[in-house]
Structures are given as C-alpha cells and as structure tokens.
C-alpha cells in the first residue's frame, strides 16, 4: 500500500504499513510515519513498544515481514545493511559500540566514507583530506584532545559522542540515535543537547529517548509508540496533552 500521503509531498523517509513479526508476535504492527527533510523527530513510548525495532528495520538489521520503507525515493527493505549506509542512513546503537582497540582517530577514520570495499581498504591512504575531516568531527564531538587515545579509555559519555562522530563523518542524510543521553551525567546531557542542535542544522534526525525534558528541548515533532503502533503524533505539547499518551506512558 502506497498511501496518498507519500504521493503529495517529498518526504525524506516514508514508512508505510511496516510490520515485523517474531514467531507470531508483532513487534511492529502496520506502522506508518513520515519524516520531512531536516526534521528532528523523537520516538517515545513505554518499554517493549517496538521503538528500537523500528530503527533496526530502517537500518536493515531486522528484515520487515511486510510494508515499505522509502528513503529519498529508494526502497530500503530490499537493500543489505552496508548498502543502506551508503544510501545515507546512519545508526547509533543504544549501548555505545565503538572500536575499543583502536584510537579515537582510527575509529573516525574507519568510518570515513572512502575505501569501503576490500581493495579500497587495502589501498586506503591517510591523506590530508581524511585528517581534516577527522579533526573537524573530533572538534564537534569534544574529543580533539583524545584523538590518539584508545577508545577503551574514554568515559561512557565520550564513547556515545564518539559513536555519534562516527556517524557524522559518514555524512548521512538521516541520523538515527537510540537513547543518546542514557547513562550520562547532567553536564554530559547538556553538552549532548548542544551537539544535537549543531547536528540538526544540516541533518534529518530520528531519536529514541525517554528523558522528556531532553525530548522537549530538541524535538520538532514526537511520535508515541505503543504495542508496535503509533499511539499519537504531533508537537510535544500536543502529545503531552493526549489522554491516551498520559494513560500508557506519561502517567497521571
């Protein structure tokens, strides 16, 4: 089903009728939502609502049972993970997953969008362009002073930033962040909000987050998920006032 909505407007991401079922359990059930270019969308919802699964489906980690995910006109459900990355989708995982054995510089360098084939990686040279790109991103993610440190030595918050940096250096059109401030200290949270504001100037961002204040700070629009479906969608005020949302998620 290609709904009328996707015909009328150019969305960067159009998810329509998306369903995935694990042994009969529908983790995501006939889900549809649309992202405008440069929009910041936050997905909230109780545990088990299927938020992370939605990101998994978009980035190809999980294959959809039915439905379509159109990104920039391309159907993502048929592509392999690395092809989805090449078409411009970056994904940050919930727990920081950086390469602990490599330095911060090398982490960013590995993510630099050049030399992704086997032969390309063999022939890859660390030229000035790469060094410049790495240093630029390192500054954005507050890690300029740690470039030559192994990533294993970074704090939890710094690892989260590094992983965001690894996405930024890929220059994706869509960034998907799964709980970027979970486990962060108050100062780290503020810095991350600042970082996201910088990022959202020229990226479309899809974020999963529980911290309602943080959500209010960054979101253009909020999608509330419950039991694999969209429960409510709109501005943060609209969503907060929605009795259904208060019932299942926010509490009275």
């Amino acid at each position, binding site marked *: 089903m290609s709904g009328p909505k996707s015909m009328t407007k150019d969305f960067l991401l159009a998810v329509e009728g998306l369903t995935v079922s694990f042994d009969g359990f529908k983790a995501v059930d006939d889900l549809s939502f649309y992202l405008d270019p440069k929009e910041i969308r936050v997905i909230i919802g109780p545990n088990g609502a299927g938020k992370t699964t939605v990101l998994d489906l978009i980035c190809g980690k999980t294959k959809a049972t039915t439905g379509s995910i159109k990104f920039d006109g391309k159907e993502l459900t048929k592509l392999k993970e690395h092809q989805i*990355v*090449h078409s411009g989708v970056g994904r940050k995982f919930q727990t920081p997953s950086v390469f*602990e*054995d490599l*330095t911060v510089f*090398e982490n960013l360098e590995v993510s630099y969008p050049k030399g992704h084939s086997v032969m390309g990686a063999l022939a890859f040279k660390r030229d000035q362009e790469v*060094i410049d790109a790495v240093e630029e991103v390192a500054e954005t993610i507050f890690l300029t002073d740690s470039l*030559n440190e192994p990533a294993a030595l970074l704090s939890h918050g710094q690892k989260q930033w590094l992983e965001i940096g690894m996405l930024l250096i890929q220059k994706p059109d869509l960034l998907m962040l799964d709980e970027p401030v979970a486990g962060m200290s108050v100062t780290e949270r503020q810095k991350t909000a600042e970082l996201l504001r910088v990022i959202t100037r020229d990226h479309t961002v899809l974020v999963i987050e529980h911290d309602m204040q943080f959500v209010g700070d960054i979101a253009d629009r909020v999608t509330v998920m419950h039991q694999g479906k969209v429960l409510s969608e709109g501005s943060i005020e609209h969503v907060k006032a929605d009795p259904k949302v208060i019932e299942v998620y926010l509490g009275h």
Partner: protein
Amino acid sequence: MKSSSSMKWFVSREGLYYLGLAALLVVILPLVLDPFRLNMVGKYLTYAFVAVGLVMCWGKAGILSLGQGVFFGLGGYCMAMFLKLEASTPEATAIQSTPGIPDFMDWNQITALPWFWEPFHSFSFTLLAVIGVPVLLAFIIGLAMFTRRVGGVYFAIITQAIAAILTILIIGQQGYTGGVNGITNLQTLMGWDIRTDEARNTMYFICVGMLFLVLFTARLVQNSKLGRILVAMNAQENRVRFSGYNVAAFKIFVFCLAAAFAGIGGAMFTLIVGFMSPSFIGIVASIEMVIFCALGGRLSILGAVYGALLVNVAKSGFSESFPELWPFAMGALFIGVVLAFPNGLAGLYQSYVMPLESRVFKRNRSTVKTGGTPSDAKLSADKDDDYDSMIDTYSPEKS
C-alpha cells in the same frame, strides 16, 4: 625520501625484530646446525606460514579455523603431483604395466593418468595452483559461511569437519591420491635433484625467503585500513557493518589470505621433506597449527614464527626421548597458554622484555627525531607503536 623512510623503519623497534629473525634464520642457524637439523628447521618453518595466516584470520579477525591443514595439504599436494609426474617418466616406470603414470596408480589398476593430474605437468600451472586451489576452496567455504553469518564455534567445527572429509577422501581414493602413504618417492624439480644435502640447503633458504615475503604481506595488510577493520570487526561486527562495510567480504578476504599462506607453506613442505601425506593435513595436524599460533601469540605476526619453531623443536626433542609423552606435553602446553599467558610468547615478551628495551630505545629515539609538523609527528609516533599496541590493547575475554 622513500629510502630514508625505509631506513628509519630498519632502525625502528619493529624493524629490529625483523632483522633479528632474519639474522637467526639466515646466519645463525645455518652456521650452527648440520644439514639434517637445518632441513628440520626448514620443515618447521613451513608451519610458520600457516601460523602467520592464523594470526591474520584468528588473532586479528577472530575467525578460528580448525582446518588450516586442508589448505596446507592442498598446496603441498599440488607441488607433490608435479614432482611425482616428473619422477614418473616412461623410462623410469618401464617395469609398470602402464609406464608413464605414478607408481601408486599402477598398483591400483589405473591405466591412464586422471584428467585432474594432466595440468600438473606444467610447473607454472603448479605454482598457480599452489596458491589458487587453497584460495578457491577458502573462497567457496567463506562465501557459503560468512554470507550466511555463520561464525565462531560453528565455523570452527565446520572447518574441522572439512579437514576430516579431505583426509577421508584422500585415503579412500588411493588410486588417484596415493592414499594413506601419500605421494612419495619425489626426486627432482625441473631436473634438479632435491634429495642432496646441497639442494636441501638451498631449499631452506628459498623457504626463508618465501616466509619473509609472507611476513611482509601480512604486515602490509595489518597496517592498512583493512587491518584495522579486521580488528574492529572482531570486537564490534555490527558497528563495522553499519559503518558501511560488507563484513562478509572482509572475512572471505582474510580467510583466503590465510589459505594462500598455508598453501605456500604446504608446497615448501613437500619440497623440503620430499613427500606429502594425509597425516599432515588432518584434524590433529590442523589443531597443532592453531597451537603454534596461540603459543607464539595470536596477535603477533613474528610471534607465530617463533611459536611454530619452538613447539616443533620441543616436539622432536620430546619425541626422541619420550615418544609416548608428547601428546600429553602438547595438551599441557595448550592449556598452559590459554590459562596462564593468553597472548603467548609475544605477550610475555611484551610485558617483561619490552619495558627494559624501552629505556634503551627512548634514549636513542629522542636524538634521532627531526622535522615534520606537530600533528604529523603525533600521528607518526602513534604509528610506530602500532605493533606494540596491537598486543597491548588485547583483552582475553573477547572471542
């Protein structure tokens, strides 16, 4: 510029390690050992080819193969087939009922050379096959396993099964393969008698030369971005995948690389030892190869060479005095490595000898360093320590 930077490499710590190994293999051992013992060392070194491949495949990329003997054997059999055909001229085999085919075929009532033996009349084809056949098989296995995301223990078991299958196949098809005896009675290589002390001596040096070629290839891969991706893949496969890499392609590449190294080692084995048999390629042989790599230090390319040498020296020493005890000693050695020093000899060297070296080195280094922009120097200084840090940042609970 180019030559000055390579000069710098030779006086770097890593360069000195390579020079040290070269001095040991090219100068010291040939001077102190008699031709028989030197030939033995040559044989041990052929296992080092496999161990270096395992460092890349298992140590770096985390793909444990318990079937490297398969690739070693395929390389070895390719070479043995060429040598056997050369030894089976119609004149030399005139007493057979079908002259001109290998003797074991005649004993098995085979009357014509099988088709797959034909191309091994050509030496250049044989050289290609020594690398090509193992790589082709590794490619097929890799394609079947890695694109389906089969890994870890499952992959190890499957490779071990393949080692068993190949052994059974070779033993069962006696008429085509020489069966359990293998391919024996090899005499000349393009008319050059390989059984003389002189030829064996020369073969030893060719083997050392090839080994260094393999070592430098491994080092090149390790220090390229591909090398970093292998290490990254080992720890965070999904992150690599979602950074835009086709993980399966990289796994297939490193598995084929290890197979190519093993194939070259196998061919050198045939040339040095003078025959090839299924006992060198089966499950036990394949597991021993993993032990060489583990003992040397599975993250260290040079460590693998020392591991292969030392375990084999210990093996022949032990077997000469207490043959029945060797399997127990070997088992104890492996348990010891895993429990007490999981980074092998290279890890021990790194924690106990290197700190001493560093003191001497730092003093020299500070007087040599010149030029370059500050950020340049920072990055290249980091590079110098790459070899060390590979061992340094390893933590045993992974894989």
